[in-house]
């Protein structure tokens, strides 16, 4: 396919010219390598301009529609009665759930329609609602401070490993009230859940399956300890004691756990890394932040837009419909590319730029909209706000000293390594 023929070393205007030469019908933006090389944005730019609702007839994931403009994405995301998230129809990512390779037919409320989705989501929502977050804030702040205080100044370190992974894992362990010394398991299970076998994390679907079953068994132990114990405000106690979730069958139990683990882990991890990268690429914005740390509250949603930690969500059409003048048939796979919508120049002013005092910074697509909108959005913002407040207290400059390495994935927009050097005030 022509999308493959783009030489790795092309960038900027040359890349745009090469992309412009590909016949539209051959454009397949779902190739994971385009995200790993961070070249996919050039493809999205062309689609937004020339074919914003784009049909790709042949791909590794079968035929699919790409929705690339902000307003079309909003229209799909808020029309849950026509565009289904149901796992049995394929679920919420371009890679179908319940494809026979993995053998684990996980069920989770993000991949359910009403009314079951609503009941299960309501059971766990209080854990990440603002009033519970007020209780968590001092704990997260203390842990963030400890992580930053342990870092060497002036030496090259990997920000991803030393800070981003550490902070999100600690927060997740707090939310689950997970055995503290074992918390690295949460990171592992999160990585395994979204892993493509052979891409470095697991070698096979069988290994993935075995590790996830181990995860389920571990949580079953915690669940059994907490069921019928009133008053726990951790996620396991809430699920174990809510009528909507306490009788979940095995694959639903495991599915919902993994949803909460991945939802609270990969995403915030990559926004923590992405923020450092964004500030280094926009030194004027870093100066602005230094002179006015009160901008952090505004910068946080701008980081989440700029990084867009989940590139897409997918739906399946339940009936014939129309998006942007194109006819979508019942059963079609519809991919909302949040990463593209967040760069839509017709809705967002100078979208390629990272602007920490942007007006209305929370008008972005990274959390999705409608009934499946990210449940942990306030927690994500809280973690980012705290880490940046604590960074600014300690360091004049978190300097990126090498190229970031990116994850081979068309779903998680991941930074796997980010070499930095810390400069004290």
């Amino acid at each position, binding site marked *: 396919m022509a999308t493959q023929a783009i030489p790795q070393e092309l960038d900027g205007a040359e890349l745009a010219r090469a992309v412009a030469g590909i016949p539209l019908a051959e454009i397949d933006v779902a190739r994971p390598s385009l995200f790993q090389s961070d070249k996919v944005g050039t493809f999205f730019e062309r689609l937004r301009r020339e074919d914003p609702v784009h049909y790709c007839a042949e791909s590794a994931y079968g035929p699919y529609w790409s929705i690339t403009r902000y307003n079309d994405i909003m229209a799909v995301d*808020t029309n849950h009665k026509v565009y289904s998230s149901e796992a049995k129809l394929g679920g919420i990512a371009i890679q179908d759930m319940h494809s026979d390779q993995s053998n684990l037919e996980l069920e989770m409320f993000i991949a359910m329609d009403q009314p079951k989705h*609503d009941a299960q989501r309501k059971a766990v929502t*209080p854990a990440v609602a*603002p*009033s519970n977050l007020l209780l968590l804030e001092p704990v997260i702040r203390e842990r963030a401070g400890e992580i930053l205080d342990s870092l060497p100044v002036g030496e090259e370190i990997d920000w991803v490993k030393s800070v981003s992974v550490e902070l999100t894992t600690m927060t997740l362990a707090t939310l689950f009230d997970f055995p503290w010394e074992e918390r690295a398991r949460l990171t592992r299970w999160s990585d395994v859940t979204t892993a493509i076998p052979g891409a470095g994390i697991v070698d096979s679907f069988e290994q993935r399956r075995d590790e996830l079953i181990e995860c389920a068994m571990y949580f079953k132990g915690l669940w059994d300890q907490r069921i019928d114990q009133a008053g726990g405000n951790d996620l396991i106690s809430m699920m174990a004691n809510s009528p909507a979730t306490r009788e979940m069958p095995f694959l639903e139990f495991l599915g919902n756990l993994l949803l909460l683990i991945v939802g609270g882990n990969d995403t915030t991890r990559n926004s923590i890394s992405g923020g450092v990268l964004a500030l280094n690429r926009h030194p004027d914005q870093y100066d602005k932040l230094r002179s006015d740390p009160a901008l952090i509250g505004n910068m946080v949603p701008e980081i989440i837009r700029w990084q867009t930690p989940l590139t897409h969500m997918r739906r399946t059409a339940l009936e014939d419909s129309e998006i942007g003048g194109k006819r979508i048939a019942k059963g079609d796979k519809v991919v909302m590319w949040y990463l593209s919508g967040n760069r839509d120049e017709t809705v967002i002013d100078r979208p390629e730029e990272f602007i920490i005092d942007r007006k*209305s910074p929370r008008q972005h697509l990274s959390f999705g909209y*409608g009934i499946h*909108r990210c*449940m942990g959005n*306030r927690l994500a913002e809280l973690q980012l706000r705290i880490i940046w407040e604590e960074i600014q207290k300690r360091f004049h400059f978190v300097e990126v000293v090498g190229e970031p390495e990116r994850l081979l994935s068309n779903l998680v927009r991941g930074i796997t390594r980010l070499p930095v050097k810390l400069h004290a005030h």
Partner: protein
Amino acid sequence: MVKVTFVAHDGRRFPVEIVSGMTAREAALFNDVPGIDGDCGGQCACATCHVHVDPSWIDRVGCLSDGSMEADLLQFAEGTTEESRLACQITLDDRLDGLVLHVPEQQY
């Protein structure tokens, strides 16, 4: 012009005026009333412009209707009551002149 008063969680009152036909979300944002986020841009898609309609006004504004997108979204919000509505779904006109809306402590 329609007069609306937003009452913050701490009791502070924010009386504002806006032209008829605008929504309560717009009335809050254009006048910098704190506590109304309205992340989605007023499209009934995020539930971050949650308000409690003052009980003396709820009949005129109307309660949530079952099965509406607004009700679907507000079921996940924190601290909802019988008088909960999304400000983006309240269109202001002369009938609602003098409306009082209470802003919750936090939006979710």
